[in-house]
């Protein structure tokens, strides 16, 4: 619809640049980093769309955005995902082009000469269009993800903007450089070839954002695998506790960084079991003496010491150490109380206790499980943080029982 509107009202772009930019759009989309753990794809398509806004106008930018998504080697993408991608990118392209025009961007770029005019009639409008495109991208993605995966809308939007927003807007400058090379420098279509180098540099930079997130996931997974070779049941247990803890953190309205800390804490809350003799872990709970119980409970101190030295897990360490504290101050190892206990520890304490209620897929209905969980949390009033407990119950009612597989968006 937007396409027809801009065809009728906007200018009609030349065919050659249109095809060239569409080809670059297709290329960028196919060069994108495969999204393994994060659901956000990084590509330099945003830069191409920005350039199209200036060189091609609204219809051209709309067309480039749509065309880039049509050719896709990945056969696993479902039709509605593809449709969404087409709609989103064509919208970003067309709206960007309109913003460019509204801000006084020049349409006939051949006539713009001199530094001052270039900045006023190309540079500034492009910057504004860039910011608007970045926001549209975040909002549309956030909307879709919150609709399909029930991640709260603002949580996801903030996550995108915090992780890649600055780079998205910053690399928009390449779009401006592209336009300068094309018209004032007189390079024409050859500029596309030259601009590929900065574009690929930008792609590499975007990839690093994804890589950073993935490196954290991998390190955590490796630690869990190490634990799993000793205690196989711990792997699924960790995944379920992590899922429940993450939902709880979302319910409590924590920021993206805090949520990540909570998830790492929950995933690794039993990593200290690596330091507990295997024969104790394999014995049934009834056959363990008080002294042995204490030896097992020291695992949280050992676990916190084990992951010492990994920078990104620094905040999760205190969560692991204090997971057995009591809210009224009577717990181990340090006897912290109330808000002194790290929020991650308070959440994980609840999540681990609730998860322990249901070993394995027992055929009990969700409401019954929630009632059980609520009863457990009430049974020992001083043990848990009431706010975290209430949030966990809400999360259970909303999402169901944690399955431990497909932990949702994991950025």
């Amino acid at each position: 619809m937007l396409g027809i509107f801009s065809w009728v009202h906007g200018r009609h772009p030349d065919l050659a640049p249109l095809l060239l930019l569409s080809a670059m759009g297709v290329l960028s989309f196919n060069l994108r980093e495969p999204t393994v753990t994060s659901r956000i794809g990084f590509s330099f398509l945003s830069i191409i769309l920005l350039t199209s806004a200036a060189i091609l106008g609204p219809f051209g930018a709309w067309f480039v955005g749509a065309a880039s998504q049509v050719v896709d080697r990945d056969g696993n993408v479902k039709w509605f995902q593809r449709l969404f991608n087409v709609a989103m990118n064509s919208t970003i392209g067309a709206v960007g082009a309109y913003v460019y025009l509204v801000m006084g961007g020049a349409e006939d770029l051949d006539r713009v000469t001199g530094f001052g005019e270039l900045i006023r009639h190309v540079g500034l409008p492009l910057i504004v269009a860039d910011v608007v495109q970045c926001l549209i991208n975040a909002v549309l993605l956030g909307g879709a993800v919150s609709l399909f995966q029930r991640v709260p809308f603002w949580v996801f939007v903030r996550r995108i903007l915090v992780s890649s927003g600055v780079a998205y807007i910053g690399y928009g400058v390449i779009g401006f450089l592209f336009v300068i090379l094309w018209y004032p420098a007189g390079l024409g279509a050859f500029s596309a070839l030259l601009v590929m180098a900065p574009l690929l540099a930008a792609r590499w930079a975007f990839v690093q954002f994804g890589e950073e997130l993935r490196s954290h996931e991998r390190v955590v997974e490796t630690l869990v695998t190490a634990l799993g070779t000793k205690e196989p049941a711990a792997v699924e247990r960790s995944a379920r506790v992590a899922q429940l803890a993450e939902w709880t953190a979302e319910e409590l309205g924590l920021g993206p960084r805090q949520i990540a800390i909570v998830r790492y804490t929950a995933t690794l809350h039993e990593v200290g079991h690596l330091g507990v003799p295997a024969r104790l872990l394999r014995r049934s709970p009834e056959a363990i003496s008080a002294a042995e119980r204490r030896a097992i409970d020291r695992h949280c101190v050992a676990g916190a010491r084990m992951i010492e030295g990994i920078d990104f897990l620094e905040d999760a360490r205190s969560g692991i150490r204090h997971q057995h504290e009591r809210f009224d101050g009577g717990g181990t190892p340090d006897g912290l109380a109330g808000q002194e206990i790290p929020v991650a520890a308070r959440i994980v304490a609840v999540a681990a206790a609730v998860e322990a209620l249901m070993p394995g897929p027992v055929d009990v209905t969700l409401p019954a499980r929630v009632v059980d969980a609520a009863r457990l949390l009430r049974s020992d009033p001083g043990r848990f943080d009431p706010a975290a407990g209430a949030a966990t119950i809400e999360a259970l009612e909303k999402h169901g029982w944690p399955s431990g597989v497909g932990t949702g968006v994991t950025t």
Partner: protein
Amino acid sequence: MNGTLRREPVALLVGVLGLVTTVLLTLVDRDLPEGGDVGVVSVFALMIVLGEWFRLSAPGFRGSAPIATAAAFGLALTTEVPAGHFVGYGAAFVLAVTAVAMVIATATRVLAGREVSLVETTGRFVATAVVTLVYRNVYLGQSPGTEAPSDPLPPWQRAALMLGISVLALVCDTLFTSVLRALAATANLRRTFVEEVRSSFAMSMAVAVTGVLIALAAPPMGIAAVPLFLMPLVLTLFAFRRYVSIRATYLQSIRTLSRLTDVAGYTPAGHSERVAALSVRVGRELGLSERELLDLEYAALLHDIGQVALVEPIPGGATVLAAPADQRRIEADTVAIVRETGVFDGAARILEHQTTPYRQVRELGEEIPLTSRIIKVVNAYEDLTAGARSARAREAAIERIYLGLGYEYDPRVVDALLTSIGNGSAQA
């Protein structure tokens, strides 16, 4: 160590020679800029100084200063500024400015107590010299002290030409640093060169193109083209920082994993670190490349992680004393855990063969990486000495290794081990 001492003076000599020659030539030929060009040149010079100051270096990476190199290339290739004005300075002046800017930046870094690499800085100067001389003197035929002649080619052909010259210059830079590096280490030139090209190719292309783009955008945009076109490189600098922090995360996780078995009481404290340090020394003795050494170090740090699956720890954590079947089970668990990281496949490949006896290479022609054989020998040595450093413990351990020479252990590696621990006489 000796090598680094030898190659720095060579680089210093080349650098000082370049500086003195170009400054003298500039003064003799009166190859100086007039009025408006001074501003243009000072912006370039400032960018070179800044670029040298914010240079990149990371383990396993060729050090570089992309912003400085791109700015220097831009200075060399820019002959026209707005309003059809051509700059009035020539090759000697360009190189003198570049050399002075590099000296200022290097001196500041030394004063600030930061590390400098004379080899790399001189390499960049060599590259700039190649661009300047080939473009200005050979192609344009500009004579000293006169205005640069205009280039008759259409823009896109000029761009292609400049790009070609820049790539040639970067190859010269790599060749220069490789020769110096090959002089220093016992490594051979071809392998050093290939490795340097591989580790810096992408960044070099971005640098070459940026230099060309600055020169092409200077006529319409003027000097503003310099910061504007360097901007993507600056952003990439931040991404590089992120890249380095990612590597650091993995390294930290390796250190943590290597300590896991210590903390959990499966191996004596510091066992993995000792195996890693000695393996690297043996590997260096056998002439492995830096990349292989890095994989070897990681593999050595992680080689015992599979022990966490054991119900009862092996006495002293000494896998060499465990039954072969148990050794292989630990090995399989180790490899599974290391593979899980998804980034240390190099280390995982080494670990897959860490228990395979050497005889399988000799008799069955099985391919076992040299690095795996190193870990097998060094691990046995460390297990047998159990951290003791006395001459008696050492001799006892070596005697036991000798019993398995050629059957369990690769004789070449054992020889290298003896040299590394300073016991060459025991070979007799």
